[in-house]
């Protein structure tokens, strides 16, 4: 069986700065891949290349057996690859329901009744049905991000890309968003998740990719990666996170 997403020697640069350097990656259907790495390592760019918000300079990208390149009609691909952003980017002039239905009605030309039923079922599932007629600015960050996830799900995608979706949230709202993603993982959704929530990464991932300097420096199952990282760079990276978690109490005078 072919992988759902396959990158081979995929490279991308911004001007003269290489961001992705001959990346090879296969993601199987139903797999949850979490991408970790220091900022600027290319992990967000990798996600953005997968749905054509950025285009690569070299190498190949296949999705569901089909090569994606400069000639691809990305509108078609984007309906099958949902993406959720760090700052939600809900459409502020539309209500929650209008945000959810824009794609299904305008892009996919589905019937109003059927799309509405799906949107309401999803809202119910994340406990936001009572917000259906609210505008984004009336919602908390966590609520907005959950709606943004639903907006992508309403297109019935085969893959979901999450780009640091909890990074802009207050700590108390992180949980409600991560729960939705965990729920999706349990439902068998194929996902690529960029995050800085280590515990969440460990809990949700089938596989961890550690990126550094535009290459995949290490990939492993979460248990191995977190308890016994293979590269020095990954060890350093994890130490920085555990330093914060295990910070000693300041000595009182």
């Amino acid at each position, binding site marked *: 069986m072919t992988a759902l997403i396959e990158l081979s020697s995929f490279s991308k640069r911004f001007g003269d700065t290489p961001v992705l350097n001959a990346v090879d990656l296969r993601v199987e259907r139903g797999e949850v891949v979490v991408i970790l790495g220091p900022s600027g390592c290319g992990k967000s760019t990798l996600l953005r290349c997968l749905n054509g*918000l950025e285009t690569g300079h070299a190498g190949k990208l296949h999705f569901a057996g089909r090569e994606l390149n400069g000639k691809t009609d990305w509108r078609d691909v*984007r309906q099958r690859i949902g*993406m959720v952003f760090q700052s939600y980017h*809900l*459409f502020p002039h539309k209500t929650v329901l209008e945000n959810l239905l*824009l*794609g299904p009605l305008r*892009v996919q030309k589905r019937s109003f009744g059927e799309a509405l039923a799906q949107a309401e079922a999803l809202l119910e599932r994340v406990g936001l049905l009572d917000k259906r007629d609210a*505008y984004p600015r009336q919602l908390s960050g966590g609520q907005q991000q959950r709606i943004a996830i639903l907006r*992508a799900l309403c297109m019935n995608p085969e893959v979901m890309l999450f780009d640091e979706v909890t990074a802009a949230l207050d700590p108390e709202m992180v949980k409600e968003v991560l729960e939705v993603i965990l729920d999706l993982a349990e439902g068998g959704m194929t996902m690529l998740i960029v995050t800085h929530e280590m515990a969440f990464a460990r809990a949700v991932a089938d596989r961890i990719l550690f990126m550094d300097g535009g290459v995949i420096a290490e990939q492993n199952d979460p248990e191995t990666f977190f308890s016994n990282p293979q590269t020095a760079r990954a060890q350093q990276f994890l130490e920085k996170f555990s330093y914060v978690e295990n910070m000693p109490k300041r000595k009182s005078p």
Partner: protein
Amino acid sequence: MASSGLELLWVSAPQLARGAWQTLSISASSIAFATLGGIAYGVLRQLGKRWLDVPLRIYLELFRAIPVLVWLYLLFFGLPIFTGLSLPSFWCAVLVLSLWGASEVGEVVRGGLQSLPRGQREAGLAIGLSAPQLYGQVLLPQALKRITPPTINVYTRIIKTSSLAVLIGVVEVIKVGQQIIERTYESLLIYGFLFLFFFLLCYPLSAASRVLERRWSHA
């Protein structure tokens, strides 16, 4: 005096109405074309294609730098000389005011689109919207709030500038007023009427812009 003044307005009413109608039709058509052209200009500039930007910038600078009156003369007197083609003065006025207005509205639209967060465009693309859907459903409706007040400002300037059409022989409301004054010397009365006419045309627009601005700031 007062009764003779009213009487004069009464007998001149059909003539004034014809002039007012000319002013209204020039302004309304120019505003309509300027709006359509301005949206097209703003969207095209926003695409960031160099081969589009260069001609559009030249167009903008030409209408910024050269007075509307010069354009009117150039088109009305110059076009027949250089090309042998001639446009009726009414359409000369509409064309020049539309092109000038489109450059003004266009810069407003471009600024409005530019001021939107980049993520809006990406979020729209990510659900598979086409470019027309992206602009029609996501970007322009959001920009509309920001661009309405300055655009209405352009509209009132188009209405007022339409009076220049008199200089290429369009008998619009000010020309009619001057004709009546030449005959009757009732300048105060006629200019009073013209004052009121333009005020009643422009003030509701400004008021509407304020109302819309207020309403949209809540929605």
